[in-house]
């Protein structure tokens, strides 16, 4: 079946493309309801303070102010997700609290007839603070005993994992390198600002929430729990979403729960939309990390010992840090077949802005440290970096020691072979061209990332397929599409199974009132986990309709095939019926039947397959100015099977550019806990003119557990970009950049240290 796919493997245009190019697609900030109020948050100007008094008397009398929610009014309910196993012990972030823990932490909310009135009301409110001593540095926070950011202290989470005998491993090593790496605080910065919600307690007493979330079902469950409602009283609809990248992976601090509470108080729909400045200041970021890594190899280039001491700066509050740290070990360190590992990690609260999930989920940070180490080690034993990776990576048939599962598909070799060729590795690497003060160099890095979270987190996926009387099909799935295109890919899978044209499938809105349980869009999982659910549901529907067709045509089920909506006997093509004719008869015509053919599926994927990838980068470094220009970036990624090749390419180019940004320009700069660059003017995303030649290679290793062999891509395409850039810079100028992002100043400092050292 795989070889003769009609829709799978075709770059069909996305199902929502026309709505998006005509301006018809409505995103959360576009939604309106009759009688809708507008809410704004008052945010803390202090990094660490206790709220000692709030005077709202003047604001209350302002015409148009409908409700004010302070800690006196709202219950002390937790505002982050704890359903997922990893975070359930961490009850630290409340809807509102008496202590504020970062600049921008919400203190209260106002709901008013317009945004302008809400803003004016905020300016009339007086808040008294007792300023507490802040801590910004995670290493200080770890040591500090007297200043406690949270009641339990400043350590959010600590873990030690070892396997093998790492002490012996280092004794056996011929070469050991030990270095400290630092990574920056990167913002998701989707073009639709994070933080837009419309909540409405309807007259039926049910809560309806529109929110651009990656986790509709978990968010619904959480809202129900926080508001003490049964889950059938809460319905969450995810409208079109303007990008997420991990930034909408759970309820947003101060958003959905606050809108819901205000709507309940006022009996009016309430919308809140964060500004870009609020997005930069007070929504989650990538965890900045400091990683001390020690790696030992034998003389012939075999990796035998790894030691990691990692500190993650969680900020005032954190979500996902336990999962993020787990991924640093599982797919980060676990990329290589190293028998002896000592992994230590600490997540630390500081009075900086909050952190959470971000494309790559800890893996990019760990990859930067480890791939820099690998580059040094390869050089030390005189091996080509590609050959060194091939010798040491964990591949087909091996057991992943963290998840304890066998690797069933492995496209690493093909990624490297094709990448080397297409990039021109041998030529670019050996030339080391020098154009006066400008030096050119080439570097590479590889990565492994997990698809989904089966076995590690609750990871359900569900789908329902309903066939209409005209043979068209409705696919119900809660696989939230943030823009990557999973609704289209899932429709392709359903069309393939059912043997109908892609255009005949429509995909529901993501609506917890209609679409069954789903674990959310994270962990590169929807093509795989969502795809498996859709495939099963479509297969069930297919079996049912073939039974009807067999009866109608008087042939055995097994002899029937469906192509482009025509059901026919493989042995005698004259025996056939159009799907639409059959369904009309089944639904309406045959009074003894009258049913809709449906298929359903719910459950967990059987594995969490890893997907491999490699980046090759060519850079030109100006040794006089420190400027780094990337000339070419090749990305070769093993996606198992590309259900929609154009969309896979879109992930690789988009993730590549986001990775380039993290490598070179993107870092939130803080001074006394205040974010200095909270606009697109000062936080530099790459623009169309900044982009190097992007060279994209899709490798298909056919994952046996995946739908049509597919596995993930969404996050992995960012993971080793920065590592490849840092390695290319070393090739160009002989300076190791161990601190992201790589600014001109850091390059110049590195060159200065190099000339003083020599």
């Amino acid at each position, binding site marked *: 079946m795989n070889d003769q796919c009609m829709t799978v493997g075709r770059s069909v245009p996305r199902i*929502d493309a026309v709505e998006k190019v005509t*301006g018809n697609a409505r995103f959360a900030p576009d939604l309106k309801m009759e009688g809708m109020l507008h809410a704004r948050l008052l945010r803390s100007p202090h990094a660490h303070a206790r709220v000692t008094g709030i005077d709202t008397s003047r604001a209350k009398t302002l015409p148009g102010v409908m409700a004010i929610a302070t800690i006196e009014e709202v219950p002390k309910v937790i505002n982050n997700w704890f359903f997922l196993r990893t975070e359930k012990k961490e009850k630290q972030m409340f809807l509102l609290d008496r202590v504020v823990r970062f600049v921008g932490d919400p203190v209260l909310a106002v709901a008013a007839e317009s945004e302008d009135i809400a803003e004016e009301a905020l300016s009339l409110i007086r808040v008294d603070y007792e300023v507490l001593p802040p801590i910004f540095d995670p290493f200080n926070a770890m040591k500090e005993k007297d200043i406690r950011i949270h009641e339990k202290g400043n350590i959010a989470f600590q873990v030690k994992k070892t396997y093998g005998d790492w002490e012996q491993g280092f004794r056996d090593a011929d070469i050991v390198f030990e270095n400290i790496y630092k990574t920056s605080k990167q913002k998701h910065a989707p073009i639709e*600002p994070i933080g837009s919600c419309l909540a409405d307690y309807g007259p039926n007493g049910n809560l309806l929430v529109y929110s651009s979330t990656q986790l509709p079902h978990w968010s619904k469950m959480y809202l129900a729990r926080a508001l003490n409602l049964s889950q059938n009283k809460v319905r969450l609809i995810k409208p079109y979403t303007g990008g997420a990248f991990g930034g909408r992976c759970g309820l947003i601090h101060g958003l959905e729960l606050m809108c819901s509470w205000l709507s309940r108080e006022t009996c009016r729909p309430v919308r809140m939309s964060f500004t870009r400045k609020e997005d930069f200041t007070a929504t989650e970021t990538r965890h900045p990390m400091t990683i001390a890594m020690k790696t030992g190899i034998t003389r012939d280039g075999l990796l035998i010992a790894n030691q990691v001491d990692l500190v993650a700066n969680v900020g005032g509050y954190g979500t996902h840090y336990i999962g993020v740290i787990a991924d640093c070990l599982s797919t980060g360190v676990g990329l290589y077949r190293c028998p002896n590992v000592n992994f230590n990690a600490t997540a630390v609260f500081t009075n900086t802005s909050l952190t959470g999930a971000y494309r790559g989920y800890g893996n990019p940070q760990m990859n930067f440290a480890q791939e820099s180490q690998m580059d040094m080690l390869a050089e030390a034993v005189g091996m080509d970096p590609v050959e060194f990776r091939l010798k040491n990576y964990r591949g087909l048939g091996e057991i992943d020691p963290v998840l304890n599962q066998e690797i069933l598909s492995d496209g690493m070799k093909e990624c490297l072979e094709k990448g080397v060729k297409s990039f021109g590795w041998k030529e670019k690497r050996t030339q080391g061209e020098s154009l006066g003060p400008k030096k050119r160099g080439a570097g590479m890095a590889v990565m492994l990332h997990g698809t989904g979270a089966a076995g590690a987190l609750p990871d359900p996926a569900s789908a329902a397929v309903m066939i209409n009387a005209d043979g068209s099909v409705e696919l119900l799935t809660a696989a939230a599409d943030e823009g990557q295109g999973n609704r289209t890919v899932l429709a392709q899978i359903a069309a393939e199974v059912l043997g109908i044209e892609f255009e005949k499938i429509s995909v529901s809105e993501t609506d917890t009132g209609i679409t069954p349980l789903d674990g959310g869009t994270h962990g590169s999982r929807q093509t795989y986990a969502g795809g498996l659910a859709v495939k099963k549901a479509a297969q069930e529907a297919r079996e049912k309709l073939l039974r009807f067709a067999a009866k109608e045509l008087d042939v055995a089920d097994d002899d029937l095939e469906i192509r482009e909506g025509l059901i026919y006997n493989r042995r005698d093509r004259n025996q056939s019926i159009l799907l639409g004719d059959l369904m009309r008869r089944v639904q309406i015509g045959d009074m003894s039947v009258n049913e809709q053919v449906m298929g359903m599926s719910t459950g967990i994927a059987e594995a969490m397959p890893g997907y491999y990838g490699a980046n090759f980068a060519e850079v030109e470094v100006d040794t006089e100015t420190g400027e780094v220009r990337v000339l070419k970036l090749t990305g070769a990624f093993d996606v198992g099977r590309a259900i929609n090749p154009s969309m896979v390419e879109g992930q690789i180019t988009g993730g590549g550019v986001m990775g380039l940004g993290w490598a070179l320009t993107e870092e939130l700069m803080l001074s006394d806990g205040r974010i200095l660059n909270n606009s697109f003017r000062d936080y530099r995303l790459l623009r169309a003119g900044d982009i190097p030649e992007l060279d994209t290679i899709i490798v298909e290793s056919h994952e046996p557990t995946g739908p049509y062999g597919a596995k993930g891509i969404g996050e992995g395409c960012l993971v080793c970009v920065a590592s490849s850039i840092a390695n290319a810079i070393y090739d160009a100028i002989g300076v190791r950049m161990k601190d992201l992002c790589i600014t001109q100043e850091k390059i110049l400092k590195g060159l200065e240290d190099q000339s003083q050292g020599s």
Partner: protein
Amino acid sequence: MSRIKITMDVNGRRHELAVEPWELLVDVLRDTLGLTGTKKGCGEGECGACTVNMDGRAVLSCLTLAVHADGKEIMTIEGLGKRTKLHPLQEAFVNEAAIQCGFCSPGMIMAAHALLKENPDPTEEVVRKKIANNLCRCTGYERPVKAILKAARMIKEGHHE
């Protein structure tokens, strides 16, 4: 201060409106006229999501006072083509997979529309330079640039405008 009367042509229709002197074009389009295809990504003129055409030129509607649109012809994404009859730019964005989340797309398409009016046969370099005001976080710009170049060819080859 009292409201100011303005007359503007939006997507071929005449609107007489009374606007506050500080009101921004983007808010009048989105809130008063219900044309939410024009997006607001930053409100500071840095992301380009609010780009519309004013008398054929690309303007950032979040930095344009509504009173400045008095007597002007405004075209938003809703006026470019219809679902049933897409403009070549829209068609190329659909077929070249130039869209992911779609939040930047209306602004980018309107920026490209103004560009192609001025320069029907731009090089890739010119396209990249002209859409440098439009941030996209999903695509890496590869596909949108291709789509704009394709639309230019389509228009030249006589596809409807």
